């Protein structure tokens, strides 16, 4: 049986609230990262608040339609990012959000490896029929990475983000199960 939680450069983990809070504080301070990952206005939360938020997240136990993971590098076991899934159980579709908080790991293939690991998990373990995601127009690096993983541009909401006095489009991408299967070029998923 393949190891679902290990890619080529990174592995999926579940972190203790304190560990996660320490990293999240550090990532939040990087406003460029937050503006790439999120459309909400940037704000800085205290470690205490983040830790409480992390603890409370599992208060009601694990839901079948919500998944959130952290990611560590395989070589130095460094906590570099996260990804979250929201599953539409009726229509068997997953909305994914992924981010690398550690900026010196940008542009080195870690994001693509993370997304491939996420797609393998979603298609072979959660068995959904399609995966969707959204990104800002100005996040060119993410766009290239997602295309490498097989996502196709499916639409754009014109000028819905206002930042630095300029309006940007939001792009919407998706990948279907069959498309992902073909990309596995024959090796069993």
């Amino acid at each position, binding site marked *: 049986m393949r190891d679902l939680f290990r890619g080529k450069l990174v592995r999926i983990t579940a972190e203790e609230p304190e560990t996660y809070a320490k990293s999240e504080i550090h990532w939040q301070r990087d406003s460029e990262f937050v503006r790439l990952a999120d459309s909400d206005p940037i704000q800085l939360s205290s470690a205490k608040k983040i830790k409480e938020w992390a603890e409370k997240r599992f208060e009601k136990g694990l*839901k*079948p*339609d919500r998944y959130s993971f952290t990611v560590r590098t395989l070589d130095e076991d460094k906590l570099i990012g996260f990804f979250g899934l929201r*599953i539409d*159980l*009726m*229509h*068997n579709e997953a909305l994914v959000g992924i981010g690398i908080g550690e900026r010196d790991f940008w542009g080195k293939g870690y994001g693509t490896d993370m997304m491939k690991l996420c797609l393998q998990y979603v298609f072979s*373990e*959660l*068995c959904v029929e399609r995966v969707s995601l959204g990104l800002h127009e100005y996040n060119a690096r993410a766009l290239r990475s997602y295309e490498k993983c097989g996502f196709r541009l499916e639409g754009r909401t014109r000028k819905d983000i206002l930042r630095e006095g300029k309006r940007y489009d939001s792009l919407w991408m998706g990948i279907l199960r069959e498309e992902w299967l073909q990309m596995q070029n024959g090796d069993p998923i």
Partner: protein
Amino acid sequence: MKDVFTGKLVRLSAFDPEEMSKAFTRWNLNSEYGRLLNSAAHRMQSAKAVAKWMEKEAEERSPASYFFSIRTLAEDKLIGEIGLDVVNWPGRDAFVGLGIGEPEYWSKGYGTDVMNVLLRFAFTEINLRRVTLTVFEYNPRAIRSYEKAGFRQEGHLRNYLNREGRRWNELYMGILREEWMELNNYAQNAVLYEASPIGDGG
């Protein structure tokens, strides 16, 4: 498009703990009903306690279970309850539990009709791939009704129950979506909605 919740004799309606707890307590006075439905011995609970239990269940329920009350089309009479509990989302398999509380509606096709409505909801609305149920060896009427609705026997737990000083098997039955579609010659490509042309501004 026909209403998903309506069958030939009955319809699925909202499960209201207030109303259902009173019905439950009344139906369970008939111990035959309780023994057909539950493997555990029946505790005589007040409607108030049952309502509290139902509300707690509804609150804790993950987005994976669906409970309905069953009402006749003729006089809109409450005659039973049916529940669908998805046990495995990746495999899209769920357990169904059906109870017709009013005995005068037994063996008149109401059970089979409501099961058909439930299966249509399961396979075409929440897109499950399989539905499973358990039924006791001493309930041949239900076994026949489930077989009519398309369920196939998939084995039994030997001597699972102990009632009236005798051991009884508990049967497992299951139906796959493709089997249900074939049985009801449900054209897979039937157009549910006329796709309205979306102005693409081009």
